[in-house]
Structure formats: structure tokens, C-alpha cells
């Protein structure tokens, strides 16, 4: 082997690698010191410096490297690169949970007293976070029906600096018109932030439709086995913070870094550098290396799992559609769905695995169906290899008002399913006996 060959990592066509290749390889070559082919779990709090000058360079953000695992960790960084690659983003910052990722996403953007807008069709926990906890930071959220584009325009005109939506909305069956909304956000000088948790980058690529940031709960399909709590915020690298002038956190001097301007110094890396060096440094909601490792294992099979999740879920939805005890089924892959066209546009590989249906008999019947299931697990999660069932009105969306629940698609009769990877006939059989007993 020539000296040249020994010292230069082979580098391939970069962005031309296919999705399935990137879900296994992005970010993760053999470990440089041991040759370990699977990503090592770097279970360490801190990292040695070569000397005082190296330490200074790291603290000044003049060089790449690790200081302390609150700010960055090699296993977590591997997952960050993997997720950034799968979403087609510039960089990603992992966080302790999906909710922590949401705080990290807004943190550089929203100053005290400022506003952002969010869709009414969100995971209930996000509605609560935005409406109850964010006001304590003096961040204010205006909820808007994102299917009413003139209402969105109006709320953006009132000073909202970002618009937050879910691509495929929890509790299910609703697809968001990302292209239309990104156009409105851009025209208003605001960012479009997309929670891509339910869709995953295998089903939907929000950056291709003009989103600026993507957030994930890695707790769900990215890890895929119900093992971790985790999250990520991904930056497209396309928003020009310096030109905008509306985001001083990124474009103005940062006192804690000697007056460094992130956008000037780091260009399209600015948001992700800031999320680590300021966001994680001060908010501290960092992902643990073990959770990053488990999520990396999950991403290796993402496309395979999502295909089966989607296929099983559509089969169950079709079966439920004909059931006499079922009032309606909200699954964007059904021919009767009002979101069918949007699903074909934004989710060409499948309409996801989380959806809702309405049971005849309202709240009581909804609760009973859940309790009668044998194979479906009754728990508050989605995106597991196991099939999950829950009654949102009495659980995940319990903290909301009646109107918020109705707007979020979580009324009294609604049951939410997250379809897993089991034999689909077994899933149908379980639901059949539960509905019969309800």
C-alpha cells in the first residue's frame, strides 16, 4: 500500500449514495484507533486535551473536537451525522428527547417576548409544551389551522418568527401541505420547522419542500424498538441568518464566545454549531451515548421497517373500514381519505403506521376497546416494533381542552393505533375480538 493510500480516507460520491446505504454507513466508518466496525459506545463524560493551546482552540470553537459530553460525544455525533444525511440536512444536534429537541430548535430563534406559530394538529405533548411551559420563557405560540392558508398568512404577518408543523400529524391520518406553508413562511421571513417523527425521512423529506429545520423524536421509528427516549434537530443550512437580521442569536456577537458571530464565522454550519456550543451547553438536555447507539442500530433498518409498518397499517386500516363498530378510519393511505392526494405527494413510500379510528359508543367504548386487546400493548408511545393502542382523550391528549382535543383529532371516540411488525392477521384478530367485547 502506498503512503498516499494509507493516509487518505477513501471518499466516495458523497450525496449520491442511496438512502439505504446512508442509513447503515453515514457517519460511521471503522473506528480510527481500533478498527471496530460497529460504532463504539463512547461512555465518557470528558475528553483529554493535547495541551493548553488545544484546549483553548476547542473552547474558542476554533477547531473540531470534543470537550465534555454535554456539548458533544462521538457516538452521539455519529447519530447526528446519520440523521443529517438521511434528511438531506447540513447538520443535526441530538437531544435527550423529542421535546428537548423542540426547545433546542426554538432556543436560538426566539427571544423573550417573541412569537411563533404552530399547527393545531400536533402531538398533545407539543401543544402543552408550547402553550403552558414556553410562556414561562416568555416565548409565545399562536396556534393556527394550517389548512387555512389565509389564517397562516395572518398569523405570520403578526410577527411569528417560525411556523411549527408535523409532516404526518399525531394522532394520525393528517398530512400537512409543506410546500404551500414553506412558501408562506419564506415570504414572511419566518422559518418552517417540521416535526418529521411520524413520517421519518424514509417516507417524507421536508427539506425538499422548503422546510428550514426538522425535529425528531428518536424515541419512535428512528430507534424503532421502544428502547430509548431521544430527539434531534436538523438544520437545512439554507436559512441566511445574516441577511435576515431577525435572528440576532445567530447573526449578532455572542458574549459568551468573546463576541463571535455564529453566522459570519460558521456560515451554513452556524445553527448546528450554536445548538451544541450554546444550546446544549446551557440547556443541558444532551443525548446519552447508549441511546445514540441504540438509535443508530434502529436507523440501519429504517427503510425495511417502515415498509412493513406501512403495509401492515394500511391492511389494518382497510379491515377496520368495513367493521360495523367502527364509525370512521383516519389513515391517509385509504382511498377515502381527504389527505390521499397530499399523501401521494409528500409520502410516496407509504402513509405511515400511526392512525386513528372512531369507535361507535364514544368515550366508554374507546376505553373498552383498548382494555380488551391482548396483543396490542396499551401504552403511551408510537413507532415500536410492537403494535400499540391508546385512547388519546383519556391519556396523551388528556391535558388539552375539549376544543384543543377536537382540533387535534383526539375526540372522545378516537382510538389511536401504532401498527408494528407482527403478522398482520394476528393484529386483525386481536382488534376483532376487542371490538366484539367492547
Amino acid at each position, binding site marked *: 500500500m502506498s503512503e498516499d493510500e494509507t*493516509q*487518505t*480516507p*477513501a471518499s466516495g460520491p458523497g450525496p449520491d449514495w442511496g438512502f439505504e446505504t446512508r442509513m447503515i454507513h453515514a457517519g460511521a466508518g471503522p473506528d480510527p484507533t481500533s478498527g471496530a466496525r460497529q460504532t463504539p459506545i463512547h461512555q465518557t463524560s470528558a475528553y483529554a486535551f493535547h495541551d493548553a493551546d488545544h484546549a483553548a482552540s476547542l473552547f474558542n470553537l476554533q477547531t473540531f*473536537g470534543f470537550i465534555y459530553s454535554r456539548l458533544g460525544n462521538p457516538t452521539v455525533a455519529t447519530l447526528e451525522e446519520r440523521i443529517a444525511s438521511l434528511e438531506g440536512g447540513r447538520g443535526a444536534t441530538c437531544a435527550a428527547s423529542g421535546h428537548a429537541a423542540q426547545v433546542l430548535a426554538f432556543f436560538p430563534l426566539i427571544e423573550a417576548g417573541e412569537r411563533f406559530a404552530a399547527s393545531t394538529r400536533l402531538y398533545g405533548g407539543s401543544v402543552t409544551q408550547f402553550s403552558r411551559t414556553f410562556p414561562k420563557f416568555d416565548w409565545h405560540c399562536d396556534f393556527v389551522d394550517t389548512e387555512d392558508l389565509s389564517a397562516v398568512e395572518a398569523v405570520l404577518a403578526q410577527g411569528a418568527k417560525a411556523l411549527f408543523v408535523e409532516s404526518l400529524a399525531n394522532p394520525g391520518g393528517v398530512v400537512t401541505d409543506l410546500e404551500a406553508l414553506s412558501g408562506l413562511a419564506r415570504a414572511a421571513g419566518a422559518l418552517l420547522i417540521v416535526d418529521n417523527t411520524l413520517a421519518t425521512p424514509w417516507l417524507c423529506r421536508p427539506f425538499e419542500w422548503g422546510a428550514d429545520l426538522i425535529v425528531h423524536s428518536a424515541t419512535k421509528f428512528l430507534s424503532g424498538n421502544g428502547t430509548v427516549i431521544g430527539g434531534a434537530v436538523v438544520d437545512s443550512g439554507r436559512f441566511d441568518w445574516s441577511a435576515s437580521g431577525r435572528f440576532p442569536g445567530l447573526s449578532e456577537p455572542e458574549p459568551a464566545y468573546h463576541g463571535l458571530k455564529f453566522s459570519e464565522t460558521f*456560515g451554513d454550519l452556524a445553527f448546528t454549531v450554536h445548538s451544541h456550543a450554546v444550546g446544549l451547553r446551557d440547556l443541558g438536555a444532551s443525548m446519552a451515548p447508549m441511546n445514540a447507539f441504540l438509535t443508530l442500530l434502529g436507523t440501519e433498518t429504517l427503510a425495511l421497517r417502515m415498509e412493513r409498518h406501512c403495509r401492515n397499517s394500511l391492511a389494518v386500516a382497510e379491515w377496520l373500514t368495513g367493521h360495523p363498530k367502527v364509525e370512521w378510519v383516519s389513515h391517509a393511505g385509504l382511498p377515502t381519505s381527504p389527505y390521499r392526494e397530499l399523501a401521494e405527494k409528500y409520502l410516496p413510500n407509504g402513509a405511515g403506521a400511526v392512525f386513528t379510528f372512531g369507535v361507535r359508543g364514544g368515550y366508554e367504548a374507546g376505553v373498552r376497546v383498548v382494555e380488551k386487546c391482548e396483543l396490542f400493548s396499551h401504552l403511551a408511545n408510537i413507532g415500536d416494533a410492537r403494535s400499540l393502542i391508546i385512547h388519546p382523550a383519556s391519556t396523551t391528549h388528556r391535558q388539552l381542552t375539549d376544543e384543543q382535543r377536537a382540533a387535534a383529532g383526539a375526540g372522545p371516540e378516537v382510538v389511536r393505533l401504532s401498527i408494528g411488525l407482527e403478522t398482520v392477521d394476528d393484529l386483525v384478530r386481536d382488534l376483532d375480538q376487542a371490538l366484539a367485547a367492547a
Partner: protein
Amino acid sequence: MATDLHYSDALITGILRRVRTIAMVGASPNWKRPSNFAMKYLQEKGFRVIPVNPRAAAAGALILGEKACASLEDVPAPVEMVDVFRASEAALEITREAIRLRAEKGFEVVWMQLGVRNDEAAAEAEAAGLTVIMNRCPKIEYGRLWGELGWGGFDSGVISSRWPRPAKGNGRAG
């Protein structure tokens, strides 16, 4: 900062392996400036970086231990690469000077920083046999291709299952 410029990883890797000395036009003595960040990083990776900054040169200043030069004319040969850390409009004049001094100084590459692009300058330099890179940062590209950019959570675009032998010395091949 989307761009339609495309440079293969092999091209960039080849440049960063071959080049030993860089003349950085617009290098700042202020350690908080982006050019100073880039210069310090490239020094750590074993490059010699000669700052070109008339004001610093007039003051007889050292930048990161290197004497500042007033112009490309003054840089001591051999220098394989000119890194333009100036506005896009200034790039044409700097590039023409690089073309003029090409043989004398040994310039092979004109590299314009992230955010700097001047197509006219590029065309002239290429016609004169120089390799041109625009709208890229050599620090970011080095970090990306030598496996450090991913430490910050960035997509390097690099995929490889090979396990390179550890580098000797400064990490770049001779």
C-alpha cells in the same frame, strides 16, 4: 448558501494533500475573525499559512507566528495555494495577481472562501492553468474529508468501510 458549484471529493482531497504552503489573502490578526480561525486550524493540520494583509504588514505584525505580507508579490516562494479571504469583487484582482506571479511563486491553486465567488476570475485562472475552487472553506473541507466535521454533527457525505493506517507526522502524505 446553496450552490451549483460541484467539486469532487477526490479533487479537494488531492489539493489538500499536495499543498504545503498557503498564502491567505485577508488573514486577520484579530483572533475572533473567521480568517484567523481558519488559519489556526490549517496550521494545526501541518500547513504553513502566510498571511497577506497590507495593514498588518505595514505594522510589521505577526499573525499566528507568521510575518504578514503586504501583497502576493511579497510572499516567499514556494507557495502552492492562494486562499482568497476577501469579498467576491476583490477576487478578480487577487486572482490576476496570482496568475501573473504563478511561475515565480509556484502557485497551483486559487481557492476562494465560503461565500466568495467570482466566475470571471475563475475562468481566467483556469485558462492560465490554475486549479480553482470557489465558495468553499479549506478548514471545513479538511475537517469533512479527514473525518472531523462529523464530530460536530455535520453530514460529511463521506462513506467508507476501509480502515486507513494511522498517519505519520502531520496527518498528510508527502
